[in-house]
């Protein structure tokens, strides 16, 4: 039922909320109770002066009765029904439900949003617990030290006649291990404590680097204008604490500078005004497609005219750099979905690939992915080339019918019967 035909349902709901009898309302707006009954059951259209009068008695704006629940609320209800994974016979009546029971609809929509937030948290924590080498090493350290303490304390407590030499040695071990346990536990808590914003808690170089790029919104005006070198920016970055993070960030910024020199901001801003045509840009600026894709992702949204995500990997598939984009989940750690065009490009170096994709998940949005792999160094007869691949991710306004379904990473992907699956999903019903 269309939303604008549910005015009667909303009038009824509001009247019942105010505990106003049908006859009483009818009397106040000078119509019969039977006619109001027909209106409330959506069997008579209502508008004009009568609508205004009813709205006045019900103490709401007329638009609240004609437009009903917010579009976003109804969209969330439909999304909740789809995500439930079970056929909902009343799916077409979501707006009627929202109109008649706005309070309950808000509760359902709120719970649905909460589930989505929790799922995202699970995804982040799962990524971290599964693939974060720093965390795995910290946990191993804590548990191994605890094992040593338990075993040593047990010997001291349970062994009746213990030679003085052994006893002294175990006391010493206990002292050492308890100190180690205190230190490693504190380090682990600091690492896990997301409430602090201190960079020390990030712990892994990629996270430091990501915090650095995020703080600049992935665009570096100082490099564009030649005011600062990559090394100067890296040296001054409070987010980059470790040498590893500084090294990685410097490599990426050097690429950035080279791309910016080849395609100066003013020129490429003019070039993308008519649309994004990477092939033409490569020809105009006499450079390769990988450079163009990287450069496009580095442009501010107001220049590019749309959001853009980017991901780069090496030949092993390890993610070297990621610029996230809403709706296309890029795992922070560990292996990504092998169905991404990025990896197809690795299998066909120097062949540009353009794929329409949609990512499995709650907010399935469509994207155009442009990917290409290139040799990292000048090809040489003496050794095999080392390839890297880059993929520009552009949101699509229209939904292509033949979009290729891809995931984020297997652990948080709900796709069933996927030939590329490496491991079960923790979001499956069994989780």
């Amino acid at each position, binding site marked *: 039922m269309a939303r604008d035909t549910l005015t009667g349902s909303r009038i009824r709901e509001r009247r019942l909320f105010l505990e106003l009898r049908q006859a009483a309302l009818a009397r106040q707006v000078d119509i019969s109770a039977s006619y109001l009954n027909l209106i409330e059951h959506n069997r008579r259209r209502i508008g004009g002066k009568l609508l205004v009068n009813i709205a006045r008695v019900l103490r709401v704006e007329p638009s609240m009765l004609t437009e009903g629940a917010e579009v976003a609320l109804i969209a969330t209800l439909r999304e909740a029904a789809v995500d439930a994974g079970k056929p909902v016979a009343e799916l077409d009546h979501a707006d009627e439900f929202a109109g008649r029971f706005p309070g309950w609809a808000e509760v359902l929509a709120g719970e649905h949003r909460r589930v989505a937030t929790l799922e995202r948290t699970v995804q982040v924590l799962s990524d971290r617990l599964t693939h974060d080498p720093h965390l795995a090493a910290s946990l*191993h350290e804590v548990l191994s030290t605890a094992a040593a303490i338990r*075993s040593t304390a047990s010997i001291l407590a349970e062994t009746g006649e213990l030679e003085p030499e052994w006893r002294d040695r175990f006391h010493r071990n206990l002292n*050492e291990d308890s100190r180690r346990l205190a230190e490693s536990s504190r380090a682990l808590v600091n690492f896990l404590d997301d409430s602090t914003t201190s960079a020390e808690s990030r712990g892994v170089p990629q996270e430091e680097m990501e915090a650095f790029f995020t703080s600049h919104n992935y665009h570096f005006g100082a490099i564009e204008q030649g005011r600062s070198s990559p090394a100067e920016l890296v040296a001054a970055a409070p987010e980059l604490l470790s040498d590893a993070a500084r090294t990685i960030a410097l490599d990426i910024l050097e690429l950035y500078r080279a791309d910016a020199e080849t395609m100066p901001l003013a020129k490429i801003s003019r070039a993308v005004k008519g649309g994004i045509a990477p092939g033409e840009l490569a020809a105009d600026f006499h450079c390769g497609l990988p450079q163009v894709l990287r450069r496009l992702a580095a442009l501010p949204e107001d220049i590019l005219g749309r959001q853009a995500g980017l991901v780069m990997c090496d030949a092993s598939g390890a993610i070297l750099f990621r610029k996230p984009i809403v709706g296309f989940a890029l795992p922070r750690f560990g292996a990504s979905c092998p169905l991404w065009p990025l990896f197809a490009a690795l299998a066909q170096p120097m062949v540009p690939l353009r794929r329409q994709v949609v990512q499995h998940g709650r907010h399935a949005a469509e994207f155009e992915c442009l990917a290409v792999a290139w040799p990292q160094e000048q090809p040489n007869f003496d050794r095999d080339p080392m390839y890297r691949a880059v993929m520009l991710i552009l949101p699509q306004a229209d939904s292509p019918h033949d979009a290729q379904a891809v995931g984020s990473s297997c652990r948080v992907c709900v796709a069933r019967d996927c030939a590329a699956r490496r491991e079960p999903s923790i979001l499956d019903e069994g989780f």
Partner: protein
Amino acid sequence: MGRHVVLIEDEPNIIEAIRFLLTREGWTVDAHSDGSDAVDVIKAANPDLVILDLMLPGKSGMEIIKDLRDEESLHRLPVLMLTARGQARDREMAEKAGVSRFMTKPFSNAEVLTAVRDLHAQANQE
């Protein structure tokens, strides 16, 4: 003839505690901390039992157990695996790889002694 165990573990104080416990039970304990040459050490020692940590420098306990099971002479050697990773799938992976018994850290001394006695008794019955 004395009983002989090779302990592959990189935590020195765990080595010390287990060495103490098993020595008092009549075992000879050879300890080694590096995973990379652990298989060679075990082959050379030809022990009655191996206690193997999962996370080791050089080579993981899982790789070591797979290499051991590929060796005809070590195919039936009892292996007790100690690990900080105690999830069901870790246990399943270890058992599939050929681990005789799986024990999560932090363990009790009694658990270790019971496991060692059981594994040795089973090996002697076969």
